[in-house]
């Protein structure tokens, strides 16, 4: 890659970023269903308003199943099934009943299917595509109602303190670069601890015991006062 092309690509990258900013801005400000927005964001509108073809095909198939089921029920000729069928055909409904019990149960089984299949998917698609859910609605109940300061084994979920922060720093470097280092042992940290334990063949329990600690933080800052050649969580110098 020569420097000239590199420079052009850099400029183009900045340009694309700016263009994406504008597009995102427009997307968030454009009122849904507006004609101007439709013209402006052609791709977006196609994504948002068309139910997926798969679901449309599924709806057609479901309707076909319903018609067939109705037909079978009508051949059965019992009175509940004719009321249930979509298109009662007079010539067939006059036919003599053959083995009514089996056919009517099948018809009753089949009737709820079109409604259940037809309804949810398009609404789900529309909801997910038109409006990204606002963050505030999505807050789940917290895992920990309170955190306890712990500077000894085993560090586990709902603990906090400098030792937890140290663990998180190492986990961030070793396992998951997106882990947030805040000194509070939450579910994210527990997951990272688990994957670290799995990677190193330790018991996967999501708690930082002596074995995990020794592998995770072999060079913890502090003084080894009890002389076991490992700086334990109780011996680290905070900060």
């Amino acid at each position, binding site marked *: *890659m020569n420097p000239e092309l590199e420079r052009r690509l850099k400029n183009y*990258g900045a340009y*694309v970023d700016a*263009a994406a900013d504008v597009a995102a801005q427009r997307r968030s400000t454009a009122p849904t269903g507006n004609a101007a927005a439709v013209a402006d964001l052609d791709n*977006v509108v196609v994504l948002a308003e068309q139910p997926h*073809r798969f679901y449309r095909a599924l709806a057609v198939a479901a309707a076909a199943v319903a018609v067939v089921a109705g037909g079978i029920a009508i051949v059965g000729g019992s009175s509940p099934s004719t009321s249930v069928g979509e298109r009662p055909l007079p010539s067939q409904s006059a036919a003599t009943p053959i083995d009514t019990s089996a056919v009517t149960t099948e018809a009753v089984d089949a009737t709820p299917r079109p409604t259940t299949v037809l309804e949810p998917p398009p609404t789900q698609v529309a909801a997910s595509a038109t409006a990204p859910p606002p*963050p505030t609605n999505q807050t789940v109940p*917290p895992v920990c109602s309170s*955190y306890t300061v712990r500077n000894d084994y085993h560090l586990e979920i709902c603990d906090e303190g400098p030792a937890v922060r140290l663990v998180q720093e190492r986990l961030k470097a070793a396992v998951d670069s*997106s882990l947030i280092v805040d000194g509070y042992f939450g579910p994210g940290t527990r997951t990272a601890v688990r994957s670290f334990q799995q990677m190193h063949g330790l018991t996967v329990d999501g708690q930082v015991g002596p074995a995990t600690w020794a592998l995770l933080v072999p060079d913890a800052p502090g003084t080894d006062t009890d002389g076991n050649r490992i700086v334990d969580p109780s011996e680290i110098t905070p900060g």
Partner: protein
Amino acid sequence: MSAALQLWEAPVDVTAGSAAASFEQFIADAQVRLRRALVARYGVQLGVEACAEATAWAWANRDRLLAMANPVGYLYRVGQTAVRNESRFHKAPLFPVETRDPELPAGDPGLQQALTRLTPDQRAAVMLVHAHGYRYAEAADLLDIPISTLKNHLHRGSRRLRKLLEQRS
């Protein structure tokens, strides 16, 4: 680091707020990279839309996401699926040559034309590494592919790009 330090010094009030805030922060952080990758692959309009889809998915599935080893890479795939679901039955080319936007300064039409001739994987790799300056490991994580694959895409993509631009000039 400084924000984290502040949080550490505040002794209480770290229950629901911090969990939500950290996820929000994660999303905001991921969104930047995600949008770049998706835009590099699919062009501005589809890329931005795919990024929004992926973000919506992330909010709906945050528990699953938090348990993942490479959440951003997964979100990239979610965005890819959103575009693919839409474009599967369309013959329109991805990464379309877009109309000039009056709000923006002039881009680089020659380069864009050449970039459209690369495969989507090559384009994404070249854009992320050379245009946005990501390191190989970061770009590979983002695209959820091994580094060796990324290097392949880069090598072939930049070779192709050079050839195309030489032909033109």
